[in-house]
């Protein structure tokens, strides 16, 4: 029994020691729609939030981690809908919503890990849950899908305080085609606190 307790204590100590190398990050996220996403909603969005957990390797300036994010794109559109194929012409206000939830695994490489300003490059891989809704009159057209996606990013970690650091990143999010829907992409501008 005693040896189990010692093993458990050692394990907990190890966990605590490794936890010192971990970062917890909260980000405020802005998004610039690109490509097909921009055709649907072209407005820049200031509605986004992200949570990220990162663990740094001790011997190399590399970290790996996991993040969950939420970005909301929105636009009011008064354009005429004209489809000769369907034989439909329509006028009215459209309310377009595009909710994206990227759930990603990350790997980052740091260039100046001990410095006050620490630039890095990284890549995220994972899934993008996308829910796109167009409200028109009293009807709504909804598309929702899980997409496979990739998110390369560049950023800087700034050592601004003893209790937390600041993070600034630009992340290109690309969700590949899924089901009958097109691919989606946007450029994310993230500002965060690293604890």
């Amino acid at each position: 029994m005693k040896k189990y307790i010692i093993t458990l204590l050692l394990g907990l100590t190890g966990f605590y020691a490794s936890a010192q190398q971990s970062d917890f990050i909260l980000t405020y996220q802005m998004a610039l729609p690109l490509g097909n996403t921009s055709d649907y909603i072209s407005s820049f969005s200031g509605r986004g939030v992200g949570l990220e957990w990162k663990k740094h390797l001790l011997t190399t300036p590399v970290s790996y981690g996991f993040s969950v994010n939420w970005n909301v794109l929105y636009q009011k559109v008064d354009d005429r809908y004209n489809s000769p194929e369907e034989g439909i012409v329509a006028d009215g206000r459209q309310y377009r919503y595009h909710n994206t939830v990227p759930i990603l695994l990350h790997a980052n490489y740091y260039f100046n890990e001990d410095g006050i300003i620490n630039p890095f490059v990284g890549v995220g891989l994972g899934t993008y849950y996308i829910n796109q809704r167009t409200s028109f009159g009293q009807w709504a057209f909804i598309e929702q899908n899980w997409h496979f996606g990739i998110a390369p990013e560049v950023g800087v970690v700034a050592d601004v305080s003893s209790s937390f650091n600041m993070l600034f990143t630009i992340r290109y999010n690309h969700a590949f085609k899924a089901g009958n829907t097109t691919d989606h992409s946007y450029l994310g501008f993230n500002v965060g606190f690293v604890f």
Partner: protein
Amino acid sequence: MKTLLLKAFMLSSLIALLQSCYPGGAEYTSDLDIAISRYESVENLRSYRSYYLVEDSIAVTSNTKDTLTLVQQLAVLANVDTQLQGILELEKVTKTELESGAKVPDLFIQLSQIAVQQSGFVWQPPYYPGYPGWGYPGWGYPGYPWYGGGYSYYSYSNGTILFDFIDVEQTTKENEGIGNDEVPTLILGWQGALNGVLSRANSVPLINEGVDVLFDQYNTAKAGTE
């Protein structure tokens, strides 16, 4: 512990900020007004030259009293008649010409109005008037400028005016040889709908604006390009 509290505070602040900024959509019933038209064939639209309009009244399908009065109906019909000749450049066939058989129109045009009463309760959280609303009965109902929280009762009439352009030649062919007691099949060359226009005091100018939009759609469809 202090860091944990800081994390929790920042996380909840960010989520609250995002949620309160979530776009709310339609604010007024007018935001839900739409004009929509359908057609089968561009070639047929281009071939129509003349029309006969039912000018006595607009047919009613309704579960409310929020439909147009006869005076309003006649005002709408007079405008429709003018714009059929103006915007669509169609030639009018009068009732006398139709009944005497002197002229056969390409289109037989009839308007109808449908009004349905919508009502219910919604609960509005007190802290933010633009919040999308919990307990909201589905999406798409109009928001109201509530201030403060609590339950609100809403009631409005959601009405549509339909414009049926019946293709006389195709309808005649389709119904050749049918008996007098059989219901004929009507072939629509074009159909327009103004949805939401019976919502607000049945404004004739508002409906007339909608007529202009619908007939402009007709011309867009005739052009045949996106």
